[in-house]
């Protein structure tokens, strides 16, 4: 088996705030294969974005990567200096943010914001950079691309802006795209267009993608593998089909049950009861136990470790779903 493009081991990213240490990401491991789309899911506050920013070395104080390794094509990025990371950002790993209304600089033309990437990461001359930008805008479905280069972000609709953001992310042909809730801020009708566009672009270029979302329906449509995050820890991961069809962790089950999609919904639509615990003050044992229908005394005492469930599926639960409670 060839080595995965990205191999994250025991990643710990903490924020040292006045009100205590936030263990936003606490011992997270996962891998992303070449040409693969990995869905990173979980409720808001679970640490998904922090994982994404950690990969790019964009954790600012009071945050810090406290431990673990991020092996990208064999190189440990947690040990790379800022100069090295600058050459990785945009060129090797690119990012797409949640809100296209705010991720573009309102004062620079779209052309300038695209050109910036090519200036940083290629040796192309001005004419070639322009040609490349036009080509890229066209390939993400923006018409009259040459004209649009001199337009400002506010002259585009939300969906169009996200296309621009995707075009910027793809410009320097990165091998990994981290898309952090790329469709959450968009209208439902536009969401699926953008997702299809992203999938096609990723597949055509043979790139890999980490698709961060709180919406399992999106992951079901897009991902090859799934990693479920809860309170900064991986509670389940495995091939998308397996995890969606036979979830082992009650939390994953809960997420699936709250998808408003008849094709995937097993019972009636229901939200997971209770609230995410305060991440500064996590309970002993399993973090999910207060919201879990299967919790026992054991769950309050011992934190479950990730266990191999066969066929690539792993879950951190004392009472996994396909076993007797």
């Amino acid at each position, binding site marked *: 088996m060839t080595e995965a493009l990205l191999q994250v081991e025991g990643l710990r990213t903490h924020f040292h705030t006045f009100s205590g240490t936030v263990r936003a990401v606490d011992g997270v491991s996962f891998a992303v294969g070449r040409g693969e789309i990995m869905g990173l899911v979980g409720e808001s506050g679970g640490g998904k974005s922090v994982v994404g*920013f950690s990969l*790019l070395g*964009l954790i600012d*104080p009071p945050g810090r990567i406290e431990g673990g390794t991020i092996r990208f094509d064999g190189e440990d990025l947690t040990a790379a200096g*800022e100069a090295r990371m*600058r*050459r*990785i*950002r*945009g*060129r090797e790993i*690119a*990012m797409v*943010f949640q*809100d296209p209304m*705010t*991720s*573009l*600089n*309102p*004062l*620079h033309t779209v052309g300038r914001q695209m050109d*910036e*990437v090519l200036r*940083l*990461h290629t040796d192309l001359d001005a004419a070639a950079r322009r040609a490349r930008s036009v080509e890229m805008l066209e390939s993400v479905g923006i018409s009259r691309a040459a004209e649009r280069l001199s337009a*400002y972000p*506010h002259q585009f609709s939300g969906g169009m802006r996200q296309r621009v*953001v995707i075009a*910027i992310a793809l410009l320097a042909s990165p091998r990994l795209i981290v898309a952090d809730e790329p469709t959450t801020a968009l209208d439902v009708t536009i969401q699926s267009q953008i997702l299809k566009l992203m999938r096609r672009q990723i597949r055509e270029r043979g790139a890999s993608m980490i698709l961060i979302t709180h919406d399992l329906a999106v992951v079901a449509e897009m991902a090859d593998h799934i990693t479920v995050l809860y309170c900064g820890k991986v509670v389940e991961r495995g091939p998308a089909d397996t995890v969606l069809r036979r979830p082992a962790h009650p939390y994953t089950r809960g997420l699936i049950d709250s998808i408003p999609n008849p094709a995937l919904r097993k019972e009636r639509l229901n939200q997971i009861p209770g609230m995410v615990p305060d991440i500064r003050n996590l309970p002993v044992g399993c973090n999910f136990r207060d919201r879990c229908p299967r919790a026992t005394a054991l769950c309050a005492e011992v934190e479950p470790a990730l266990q191999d469930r066969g066929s690539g599926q792993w879950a951190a639960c004392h009472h996994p779903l396909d076993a007797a409670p």
Partner: protein
Amino acid sequence: MLGYTLKRLLQMIVVLGAVSVIVFLMMSFTGDPVFMVVPIDATEAEIAQARRILGLDRSMPEQYAIFLKGMLQGDFGRSYVFREPALDLILERLPATLEIVVVAMLMSAVVAIPLGVYAGANPGRTESRAIMTGSLVGISLPSFWVGMMLIFLFAVKWNVFPSSGRGDTVEVMGTRWSIFTADGWHHIILPSLTLSLGTMAILLRITRAGMMEVTRQDYMKFARAKGVSRRGVLYGHGLRNALIPVVTIFGLQLGDLIAFATITETIFAWPGLGKLLIDSIYRADRPVIVVYLMLVATIFVVINFLVDILYTWIDPRIRVK
């Protein structure tokens, strides 16, 4: 753009017209200027004649019409004291004031903006706290005290800069400037520094506040995710987004310094507008005061216009209407 400029020009004319009315009224209610021109022992007949010559025997609207007509022709009357056209007196002094003010504003911007960007981008650091404390000191110190301290240190104690006067001047475009001679620069430094401190502190704080807001924005992180350096992100993406309030304050301070450089000019015996104004007020030299007020109003109106143009240049979302 042309339509906008014309509209603004019209607006400026209306504002200046209003100012002229206010100035005229103010002048009419502050004593009888006839006593400034007649000798102390003048007879009733002489006073009446002077009154007629000055046009003071006419009705107020008539007087205003005369005042306005003269003004439009660049005739503000002669200074009662110097017996020269008041406008010439003011224009002769204006370059001296402009010199120290422009240098002061440049000093402020060059120091305040980088420090403000630094403090705004690194709010927790000790260096940033030191910068902010320093700026508070800059705001709180009165300029007369700063001026005197600078004279004491640099002129008296260390003897590196002169304490008064303009130094050598050369004639450029019909007026005399110190800014084009080495000796002139030598004289400009201390008064400009004195003028600049307050503005420096204000600009610094405004820049910092803007940058603190801007560094939280997604596009800053997105720019970094593209591989832009930290410095490139701060100056290439951040600063311009924080610039609108900075430019606003810059414009206001510029007008303010031109209008009220008086104290500093007095301390450094700098022969600018401020000194002339003080002298004219003491001697109730009405024409000079009128020119001064109209000039200051014009400068404010013009700066305001330029600042509005700058807005649209900084932020394409701001449309000229």
